[in-house]
């Protein structure tokens, strides 16, 4: 029981207070439910994901040795992969214990590698086919597989393979903006489908993690590795989509408060956001990090805020290694941005509209 630990009393008190508020508002009735769903913290989920991944490597080796003759027939390896994933689906669907969850995850990961192995060989290593197939497979798995960790991983790989696929097709830079939009849309609509909340959150985390990777200067430098064909898109196109998404996010986040604040304040905030977007054009990934932090705060999600802060620190330090522009130009961009941030804070201090309204703190 919760009472056993020193932290337990605090949690119980917090929950009791929240329950009392809900009763006062007429949302719930009666006493606090004794049992709450005990969702484990993110690091325990990471452990499960990690051990599943590690076990899948050994399972793959095991399968490769058992079926070494059959695996030369690439179609067969894909079929075995599909059977593995189907088995994993059944195990994860009827998840009776952590043991089966681990086996399910390992089987699915091993199955995915077998399918990819088959596709790589059947397609004669055509990159566009491989990345396209990977994208379709991961998207389907993110939607179908009945497990939180699996959905996070599949959504992550789906978004990543989508970015790689578009790059191979000669349209790099576009994916980051589109994934940024999907990520924003998911977190803004986190509670729009209460029955599917866990699915939505898992896919949201997967997209957020992928967005951090895709928007990083290191990925930007590596884009040329994916793209052998003529490039139909330019970096500014991706950044323009990202700016539009950022504006959309700010507008959506202000919506619940629009009855309380004057219309002019909404317009001023959007103009300020636009200034930020233009100023951060050359600082790759900055707007996506700030967006993740804002989204995290808007739904009280500390993990998302943590993702945003960590990625912000990594981006700013890895911005040093971006090859496209000189250090002097980078210094100029950051200097101007710094001044804009300080100015915006000053504007915020002068504005009275945000002072009203009680605080949750």
């Amino acid at each position, binding site marked *: 029981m919760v009472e056993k630990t*020193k*932290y*337990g009393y605090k*949690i119980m008190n917090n*929950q009791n207070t*929240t329950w009392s508020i*809900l009763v006062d508002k007429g*949302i*719930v009735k009666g006493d606090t*439910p004794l049992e*709450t*769903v*005990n*969702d*484990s*913290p993110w690091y*325990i989920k990471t*452990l*499960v994901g*990690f*051990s599943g991944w*590690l*076990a899948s490597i*050994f*399972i793959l080796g*095991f399968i490769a*040795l058992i079926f070494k003759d059959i695996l030369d027939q690439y179609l067969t390896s894909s079929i075995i992969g599909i059977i593995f994933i189907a088995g994993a689906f059944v195990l994860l669907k009827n998840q009776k214990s*952590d*043991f089966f969850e*681990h086996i399910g995850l*390992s089987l699915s990961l091993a199955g995915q590698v077998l399918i990819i192995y088959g596709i790589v060989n059947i397609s004669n290593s055509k990159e566009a086919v491989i990345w396209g197939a990977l994208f379709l497979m991961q998207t389907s798995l993110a939607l179908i597989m009945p497990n939180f960790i699996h959905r996070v991983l599949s959504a992550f790989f789906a978004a990543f393979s989508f970015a790689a696929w578009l790059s191979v097709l000669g349209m790099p830079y576009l994916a980051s903006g589109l994934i940024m939009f999907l990520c924003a849309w998911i977190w803004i609509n986190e*509670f729009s489908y*209460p029955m599917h*909340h866990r699915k939505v959150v898992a896919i949201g985390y997967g997209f957020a993690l992928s967005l951090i990777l895709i928007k990083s200067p290191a990925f930007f430098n590596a884009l040329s590795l994916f793209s052998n064909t003529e490039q139909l898109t330019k970096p500014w196109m991706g950044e323009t989509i990202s700016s539009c998404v950022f504006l959309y996010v700010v507008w959506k986040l202000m919506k*619940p*408060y629009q009855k*309380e*604040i004057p219309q002019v304040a909404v317009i001023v905030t959007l103009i300020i956001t636009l200034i930020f977007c233009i100023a951060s054009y050359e600082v790759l990934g900055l707007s996506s990090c700030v967006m993740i*932090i804002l989204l995290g*705060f808007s*739904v*009280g999600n500390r993990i998302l805020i943590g993702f945003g802060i960590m990625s912000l620190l990594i981006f*700013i330090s890895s911005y040093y290694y971006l090859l496209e522009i000189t*250090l*002097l130009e980078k*210094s100029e961009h950051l200097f101007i941005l*710094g001044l*804009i*941030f*300080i100015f915006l*804070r000053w504007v*915020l*201090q002068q504005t009275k509209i*945000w*002072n009203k*309204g*009680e*605080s*949750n*703190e």
Partner: protein
Amino acid sequence: MSSNRKYIIDLINQQVIPSDKIKEALTLIYPKRGDWKVFLDNLLLWLGGLSLGVATIFFIAYNWKDIGYFAKFGMLELLLIGAIFVYYKFADHKLIGKVSLVLATLFLGATMALFGQTYQTGADPWQLFFNWSLLMLPWAYISKFPAMWIIWVVLINLTIVLYNQVFGGTFGAFFNSDELTMWLIFCFNSLVLVVWEILSKYRPWLDVRWSVRLLALASGVTLTSLTLNAIFKDNTDLMIAAVVWFSWMGANFYLYQKVKADLFMLTGGCISGIIVISSFVFNSFTKIDVGELFIMSLLVIILGTISSLWLKRLNMGIKS
């Protein structure tokens, strides 16, 4: 904010909150206007400070010849004095004080780099980071801000790595240079972790979990890598690595279960355990065949299951 969020989501998932009341219940999760103001105030100040500090470092790193060294020194010293002046002026304002000290630390680093560029002292890079860490100490002390101490720890870590790149060979007869670096990093981060945990009892501002977890992560990752090296490469005496690893694991499991409940630390220990045990078993096989790989996959799954079951049970009690 987090406990409210978790609890309300729990209630929604259990359908304790009727679907037509979900929107109203969610107002307890969403921040109020006042919360937004405080949050944006903090965010903009940090973003502004960080951008200006990093811009200065990039500017110095570019080594622009069109501006003389005298002008660069003047500029950096002005910035440094400015940051300290802001700290002095806003000593009562917690946030501005912290941001200005972090900014002053970044400017100090840029000044050290410029000093090296200008006088071509022939000094090794490790000296830059060592001097930087030494000179920032008073600010870290007065700041009462964990992030400043983490910056200091990072600088010392960099000093150790760079120092060993130059002088690691001196101890070559006794230690592999890379191994020595990792042992030193492990010892330093573990020492800081222990001191931090002890001092946090008396200095409440130090009791910030993210910083302690970061130190534990640095310590745990290096020790796990060293143990793996000992298992696979025979670079390190396996006995030494085993004794240190077991002691570290024992201390971790005892302290963070019995003394100061922290599931993050215990999870880290479990992950290290899964890696080390499975690597040890794998390495002990004389041949790798179907049976061995089957045993390995089963072993990892069993270790993972036991760990997650144990951690989830603790989580029921702690709910950290």
